[in-house]
């Protein structure tokens, strides 16, 4: 999922500390935030936009394309269902530690209603020069500049480092898509790869993966048929098996989710796999 500068955004949880802090930054960057939600503060104005009791109430008053959720873990399911029922087509769910059965529930509802979900447990997405949604340092021009490289990452911090290295090497990004560090997420690596494949502004893609799960293997199948070059870095080569490495999804179990399996699948698909993020700028330059 890529979000454009003209898309109208709702912030659920806009009045909280994080909601307020990042709404102000998103507005300053150019994100078109048109409304917020807090059931206890309906009718008020916050960050210069009207606050509604629910996403449904907000949609009754103004058209909304994207909802960004700054909501605590146990309340996310109902907040997301509210947005989905209201007919909002894109949800960005930042929260970490949402019970997995709640995630599966809201993803099933999204699928049934044709809504797309980014996350959970993501830092969000950035379209340099247009807008961002989440808590990314989009406003730092040493990290994000308009360009033609699509970046996909399961990790916010590592994705940020990759973007920084790209900009240092003279490149810019068409968009950054943070897909999230949970084992079950709405937009997979493969989904994000497809989005960049069909995006006219993207010439090459950097895929930042991690040990755990099979998303990189799945994405490799798609990458094999792509005309645009893809470069990858997979974190966790030196991680011990059987431990959750910070992200709930980053765990090797038996022979499942190993670094070797991912690297092998990607290389067989013609994807160059980097040994260190510092090499990303040179690798992209060599392919364009």
């Amino acid at each position, binding site marked *: 999922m890529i979000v454009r500068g003209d898309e109208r955004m709702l912030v659920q949880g806009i009045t909280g500390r994080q909601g307020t802090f990042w709404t102000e930054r998103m507005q300053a960057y150019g994100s078109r935030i048109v409304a917020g939600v807090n059931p206890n503060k309906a009718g008020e104005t916050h960050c210069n936009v009207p606050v509604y009791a629910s996403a449904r109430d907000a949609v009754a008053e103004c058209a909304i394309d994207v909802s960004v959720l700054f909501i605590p873990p146990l309340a996310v399911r109902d907040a997301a269902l509210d947005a989905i029922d209201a007919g909002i087509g894109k949800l960005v769910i930042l929260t970490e*530690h949402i*019970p*997995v059965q709640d995630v599966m529930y809201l993803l099933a509802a999204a699928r049934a209603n044709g809504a797309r979900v980014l996350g959970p447990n993501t830092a969000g997405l950035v379209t340099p020069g247009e807008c961002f949604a989440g808590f990314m340092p989009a406003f*730092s021009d040493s990290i994000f500049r308009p360009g033609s490289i699509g970046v996909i990452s399961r990790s916010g911090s590592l994705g940020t480092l990759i973007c920084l290295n790209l900009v240092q090497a003279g490149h810019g990004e068409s968009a950054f898509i943070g897909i999230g560090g949970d*084992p079950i997420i709405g937009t997979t690596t493969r989904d994000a790869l497809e989005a960049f494949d069909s995006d006219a502004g993207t010439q090459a893609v950097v895929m930042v993966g991690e040990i755990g799960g099979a998303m990189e293997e799945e994405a490799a199948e798609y990458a094999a048929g792509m005309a645009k070059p893809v470069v990858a870095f997979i974190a966790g080569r030196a991680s011990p098996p059987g431990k959750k*490495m*910070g992200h*709930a999804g*980053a765990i090797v179990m038996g022979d499942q989710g190993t670094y070797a399996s991912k690297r092998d699948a990607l290389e067989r698909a013609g994807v160059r796999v980097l040994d*260190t993020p510092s090499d990303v700028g040179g690798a992209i330059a060599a392919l364009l």
Partner: protein
Amino acid sequence: MNFEEHASKPLLAACGIDVPRGALAVSAEEAAAAAAELGAVVIKAQVPTGKRGKAGGIAPAADAGEARAAAARILGMDIAGHRVERVLVEEQARIEREFYAAVLNSPVSKGPLVMFSATGGMDIEEIARTDPDAMREARVDIRNGFDRAAADAMLAGLDTNGALDAVADFLVKLYDCYRRHDAELLEVNPLALLDDGRLVALDCKFVLDDSAVKRQPALESRGSEERLTELEARARALGLRYIELDGNIGVLANGAGLTMTTMDVIAHHGGAPANFLEIGGEAYTKAKPALELVLDNPRVGALVVNFCGAFARTDVMTEGVIDAWQALDPQLPVFFSVHGTGAAEAVAMLESRLGVTPYANMDQAIVAAIAAAATAEGAS
């Protein structure tokens, strides 16, 4: 969070699933007393790992005397690094046939997956290899649940020695148990058909979703303790994610992905990381206790501090590190790479307060740290 068999089975029983009568024993005497009540029993080691049978951790006992001897042998055994502290003493079952059943969170369908196999008693990978035709799966829309009709449809045509009704009924209860207790995995293997026609869960593995612990307060204390080193336990109490490793290069970084990557790049350049320690997310203000943890590992010969600020501000994290460094005054070489949100302020602070200039990228900082640690080891 993993639950041992003795902690998992009561969850099944609470959902109406038959389990053998049994008692937990911490000594041979207790095991003998339980067997005196139950008759012929099985003594089962309670450790948070599979393959107990192959390791000799499960033994039948015909009476109290045999139960005492078997428990005495199994208690204190080492199974895959776990010392057996407790055994489950259970009545023996007269088994006609063994099945396999499970409900789990599937990242492929992004929903619950109900699995059943008319062959059981071995692990699921082995069943898939040897008898794939005996296996059935049902993808569940969690909004609708898994009812009797869904179970009947899933099982249609399987040979279960005439137990299809009982199995369908069991699967509905198993799914209910999975939902009620926020399971990540709920597995019954073997599920036994007894010679009197009853279906009984002879073993059970329950994994609680770590993210759901907050709303399952009754379960929290019943899971098995993860084995932690002293430093890992200290980190957990502080709310920090720390994993102790074998190497000599200490790692302090923000965010799970960047921390893993710092370890990877250390290994790539021929070094060995001493730890995983992430201070991203809400933990980014805890730089001081985090640094203390890294320094308290005696193997550490050099430290890499690798920050890339997004949500976490590198100036806040760096200030914490400098404060801690000045308070602790460790005699340890330290190598910084600091980029992203707040980096300009962080670099200025490092230069003015510690007289240290960060490296241009993480690879340079890491290569320098590996060389310094090698020099320190050569000197000692």
